[in-house]
């Protein structure tokens, strides 16, 4: 308990924001893009992705849940007995989320 400066508020903040996005927005998108569009209930309006606010929205929709996964997965592995390699696990999980964020941003920029 030495009170050292820590990035944990950042990772937890991203985790909780990602949880909100995953709980409230992702199900809607599963219904729209996974069910309604393929079944023809809604038109496949690809041109909507040209709008910047839509791209920003998609970036948030994709990136934030990655941090939710990273945080939860890392703690789940720790709790299952990998507490000793907590640090490398954190680097791996948050690193994967960061990489996913960069890839999502790159793809959305090139749409």
């Amino acid at each position, binding site marked *: 308990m030495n009170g050292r400066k820590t990035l944990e508020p*950042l990772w937890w903040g991203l985790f909780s924001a990602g949880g909100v996005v995953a709980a409230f927005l992702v199900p809607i998108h599963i219904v729209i893009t996974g069910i309604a569009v393929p079944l023809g209930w809604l038109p496949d309006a690809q041109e909507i992705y040209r709008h910047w606010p839509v791209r920003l929205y998609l970036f948030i929709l994709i990136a934030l849940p990655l941090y939710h996964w990273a945080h939860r997965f890392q703690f789940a592995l720790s*709790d299952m007995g990998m507490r000793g390699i907590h640090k490398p696990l954190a680097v791996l999980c948050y690193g994967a989320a960061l990489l996913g964020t960069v890839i999502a941003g790159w793809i959305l920029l090139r749409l």
Partner: protein
Amino acid sequence: MSERTITLDVTRYRPHQEAVPTVQSYAIPFPDDWVVLDALNHIKDQVDGSLSYRWSCRMGVCGSCGMMVNGEPKLSCAVFLRDYFPRAIRVEPLSNFPVIRDLVIDMSGFLDKLKSVKPWIIREQEKPLSEGEYLQSPRELDAYQHFSQCINCMLCYAACPVFGLDSGFVGPAAIALGYRYNLDSRDHGTAERREVLGDHEGIWQCTFVGECSVVCPKHVDPAAAIQRVKVDTAKDWILSLVMPWGQR
């Protein structure tokens, strides 16, 4: 009053005579209104005076008689034998703590943690006695009263899987009590407590399993307190980034 007989399988551990804990069974005749603690007191007084356990008030106020009853952390003064009859009852010391003897656990680690969150009112400056007491509105009292019901019984520590894996975790009761003083309108100690509460071994170890709140006999809801400290600490962290001059 009709008397029935129930079996208590009690964990015994006398470090001077056995290397590992053993189980001793006692058949206890009991009236309908006996709780597990009554049965233990009966054993101590009438059957086997060597049995050791902590107890005091017999009414769910002192927090001394926490034990594992059939694997669940309970105040032994608050669980009736009749609710378990005719099955045997397994009585063990609280999980996740070192055992000193029989049902007596070593609570010194918990007491250190409790002290570390400074669960008392910290004032930047005390006003002189002549100015009278510190008044609080009913609303200011409501803000923290709920979290001030903790009796330090440690059932939440016995239920917490995170504390079970990492005994360094500050833990549910201590964090909830620290938060209770942060919420107190008379207190100025939030920044002082942040060092312990916001540490890696503080709130961030909690994965919100929520068992602490399930087993709490006083319905303190420490899990909620921990999540609220996380939100407050994350907010403070963001503020310290955008307004570094505003931090103490």
